[in-house]
């Protein structure tokens, strides 16, 4: 069937400075990615990638970003992401880099991956944390996420059984 196919790039913004994530804004990020593509892939790359390009999801607390681009040119966008070295906002420049976690064809697959990734990150945080109060809070989140996981799996099994 005839429709425009997209690729969704799930990325994480990694930075030493904690203020960097808080200054994430979708317009700032969009212009940054477009400028980087124009620098790395020239006029051709900038024009090819800007047609279907959009920032679909942005979480300033965890630094997770979901970018959308057309399927034919997603490799140009993907290869330009490592060339982003700083984030500039209101005159302040914060060094950072983008880590691409997942490339998916739909937002739903990226969301599923993100849920599993966050569960794994919670377990890693639990191992590494030092403060008792933090440890209890993380343990609560882990048990809650495990319960949700079991509910999801039982829901899926029930749906399959009905079919």
């Amino acid at each position: 069937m005839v429709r425009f196919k997209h690729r969704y790039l799930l990325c994480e913004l990694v930075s030493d400075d904690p203020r960097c994530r808080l200054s994430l804004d979708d317009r700032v990020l969009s212009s940054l990615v477009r400028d980087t593509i124009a620098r790395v892939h020239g006029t051709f790359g900038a024009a090819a990638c800007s047609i279907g390009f959009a920032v679909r999801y942005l979480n300033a607390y965890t630094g997770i970003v979901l970018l959308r681009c057309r399927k034919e040119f997603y490799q140009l966008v993907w290869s330009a992401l490592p060339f982003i070295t700083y984030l500039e906002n209101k005159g302040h420049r914060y060094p950072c880099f983008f880590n691409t976690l997942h490339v998916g064809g739909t937002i739903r697959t990226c969301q599923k991956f993100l849920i599993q990734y966050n569960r794994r990150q919670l377990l890693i945080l639990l191992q590494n944390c030092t403060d008792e109060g933090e440890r209890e809070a993380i343990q609560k989140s882990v048990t809650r996420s495990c319960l949700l996981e079991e509910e999801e799996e039982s829901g899926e099994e029930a749906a399959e059984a009905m079919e």
Partner: protein
Amino acid sequence: MPAPAATYERVVYKNPSKYHYMKVCLEFQDCGVGLNAAQFKQLLISAVKDLFGEVDAALPLDILTYEEKTLSAILRICSSGLVKLWSSLTLLGSYKGKKCAFRVSQVKTIPSHIANKIEWWVDCFLIHSTHFCACINVI
């Protein structure tokens, strides 16, 4: 600048080669503009950089011969970058504010001096083989 009408001939070689060789000539609208070899290469690289960015401006491009009087050169580019180089030469319109254009006269997969030798060798072989067959028939 209208180009003079040129004849066009295409010879296809079947062997995939790593490099393509282009014979190009730079024409300016006004006369009296000179470039040395380094400036010429800088112009080529900046043309590719404008259109295809820094990644493709780093393609291995060599100028094998360059004549400053006629501003013509033989370039060598890897085969995957031929289309990018040719399209960026097509879209280059000016150098330091002066209008100019690139004329591409030949594109080959083997450099011209070797190509001539291969044709000569093939001709010799054919002549000798027909002579040999003629001798066998006589016997």
